[in-house]
């Protein structure tokens, strides 16, 4: 019977033991991961994404305290282990599942993996195909999120971006676009930054993604044609605003761009706001 106290105790002990085993496994994994990371950092090879222990590749990340910077969770598989890099999963840009939050320090690592993956494809056409595969791997964007406040301004394609802070203080992103190539860029951005710490979101620069060397990235300048650059800026701006709100600080004043409407001329403009945010990024 369930109400049997002895049974409860046994269950309790079993639970405790299971938990202990689990946390033991976790600790073991942490140690293994740390060792792998340590060896990677100590011996920087040409392919920093190479992992000697294949077991670690598929291990889901455990949540860690932000301070344990030595711990890394390797989620991205090495492109060397993918026999057919031009086709199909596993992809570095597959978006992280929503119930998993990555430990600290991941974005740069993921970005490096993404850059390696694209660099391993010598034909521009293969890089385009990879980008489109990234687009296909982006999780479906909730219809409720398709609101004007989530639009990222740019004049060639429509982009929606949702930004939230989770209970651990990490930034959660979702994105969508009606252009497949733009969607591919959004997938790359989301895969790098979803689950990142706010400061990690803010420290990335658009130039860091230039190393992907994929179609649509010839324009280095800050231009409205550079949609994915606008997306990154938008991620950063909204991150700052959400964090400011959490901390009870007033967020930055919007840039006084004008909207000429039937009701009058008013200050607005998320693109202009993104512009001023990016220029005051260092001080913000």
């Amino acid at each position: 019977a369930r109400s049997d106290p002895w049974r409860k105790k046994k269950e309790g002990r079993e639970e405790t033991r299971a938990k202990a085993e689990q946390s033991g496994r976790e600790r073991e994994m942490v140690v293994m991961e740390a060792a792998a990371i340590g060896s990677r950092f100590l011996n920087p090879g040409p392919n920093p994404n190479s992992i000697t222990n294949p077991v670690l590749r598929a291990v889901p990340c455990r949540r860690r305290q932000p301070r344990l910077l030595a711990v890394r969770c390797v989620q991205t598989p090495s492109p060397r282990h993918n026999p057919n890099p031009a086709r199909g999963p596993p992809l570095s840009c597959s978006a992280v599942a929503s119930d998993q939050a990555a430990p600290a320090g991941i974005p740069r690592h993921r970005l490096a993996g993404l850059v390696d993956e694209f660099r391993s494809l010598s034909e521009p056409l293969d890089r385009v195909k990879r980008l489109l595969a990234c687009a296909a791997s982006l999780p479906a964007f909730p219809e409720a999120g398709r609101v004007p406040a989530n639009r990222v301004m740019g004049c060639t394609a429509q982009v929606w971006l949702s930004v939230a802070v989770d209970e651990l203080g990490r930034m959660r992103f979702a994105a969508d676009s009606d252009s497949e190539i733009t969607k591919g860029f959004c997938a790359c951005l989301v895969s790098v930054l979803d689950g990142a710490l706010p400061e990690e979101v803010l420290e990335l620069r658009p130039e860091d993604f230039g190393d992907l060397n994929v179609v649509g990235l010839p324009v280095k300048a800050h231009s409205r044609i550079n949609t994915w650059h606008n997306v990154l800026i938008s991620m950063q701006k909204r991150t700052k605003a959400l964090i400011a709100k959490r901390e009870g600080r007033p967020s930055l004043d919007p840039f006084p761009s004008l909207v000429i409407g039937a009701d009058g001329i008013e200050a607005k403009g998320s693109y202009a706001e993104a512009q001023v945010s990016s220029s005051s990024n260092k001080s913000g």
Partner: protein
Amino acid sequence: MAALCHFPSAPASPRLFPLSRLLSPVSRASKPQYLLIAASRIENSIPNASTAGSRLRCFSSSSNAAASPVALPSDERESRSLGDITRPDFPILRQVVNGFNLVYFDNAATSQKPSAVLDVLNEYYETCNSNVHRGVHYLSAKATDAYEEARTKVATFVNAMDRREIVFTRNATEAINLVAYSWGLSNLRSGDEILLTVAEHHSAIVPWQIVSKKTGAILKYVGLTKEEVPDLDLLKGLLSKNTKLVVVHHVSNVLGSVLPIDDIVVWSHNVGAKILVDACQSVPHMIVDVQKLGVDFLVASSHKMCGPTGVGFLYGKIELLSSMPPFLGGGEMISDVFQDYSTYAEPPSRFEAGTPAIGEAIGLGAAIDYLSSISMQRIHNYEVELSNYLYHSLCSVPNLHIYGPAPSETVHRAALCSFNVEKIHPTDIATFLDEQHGVAIRSGHHCAQPLHRALGVTSSARASLYFYNTKEEVDAFIQALKDTIDFFTSTL
């Protein structure tokens, strides 16, 4: 190092054959889809081109700049298209993009400049640069003469009655703003109506939104027919005694359609309204005669008509310009300046504050010389041919919709097509065309968001041609487009 070039994949064309003036092969060209022919200019085809200060550009060190024309059999000579003949004048068109010869189909955004214009710009800065209307010394006199001569050239080009009816501005956008802030603010009152079409460029809409906010005037829009052209019956119906200004394009930069300006002018004047015509897509491509049209204001940009960026012009009837207050204040536009007031100069100086884009205006004059040497009628005739060819070629692509009217005996389209392919975003098409084929087209809303909303889309792709483009390029574009569509339909 020189090489003979020929069109390997084009259907047997009597127009194209190896010539004495040769291109050096560009080493980056790894996959030429088709190769350009450098054609020697046939002197009798372009009578005055050589006098426009042009020197034939030459990449091969062995041939002379002013090479004598190749002796061609006469029937072959005549069958070369205007595009083939004029291409050598445009050095920028010879480049290789992403391993492919550039196919530049974004002329509605901006045009390329012939060597004749570039040489004049260079010559200005090398020999007579000086501020205009401001000095008595030799260089200043030379520059002023050249600048004012450019004004006369523009006036002649559009058949203005008086050279003072041409005001140089930065571009057509600034010219419209000039009319809005100067004529609009002093002539529009609460309840007055401004009539526009939904197909107007943003530059012809936004200044009037701003001015109507300030004055209380109302904007009214003419929608499209099911043939996707502005509804002229609706336009006639919307004209009333309250209409003070009609703002219309001559040629639409998206639809490719042409409005009957002479009729619209008559209807507008009948109700006492003035009319401003946005001629950005017409002046570069056809004869535009402001006397015949009877317009009150007309604007155009230099950079769309083989001239440099940074200069455009406003044509306004002299009696209108004379009654208008200044737009920008500063030097040149004043007569006397005291501490608490100033008196203003006569037009056009009244509207040209500050040092103008002198070299650029002179460059525009050179562009007009170049275009005139070909003759606008000849350019227009060739572009009608190109336009039909482009339209019908695009019709051969499945699941593709072209916006605007279908061409016919009575309906002439401009040599541009905005289109959408089912299920593929125009940005994806344009990006792939560039990356994988070196073809430059435009994607987006082409500064016409209200029009796209009226068409029920967010964006479109646009290929726009000019007289230096060829049917062979259209073939290459169609091939590239089909390849692009195949790629996206198989990958998605």
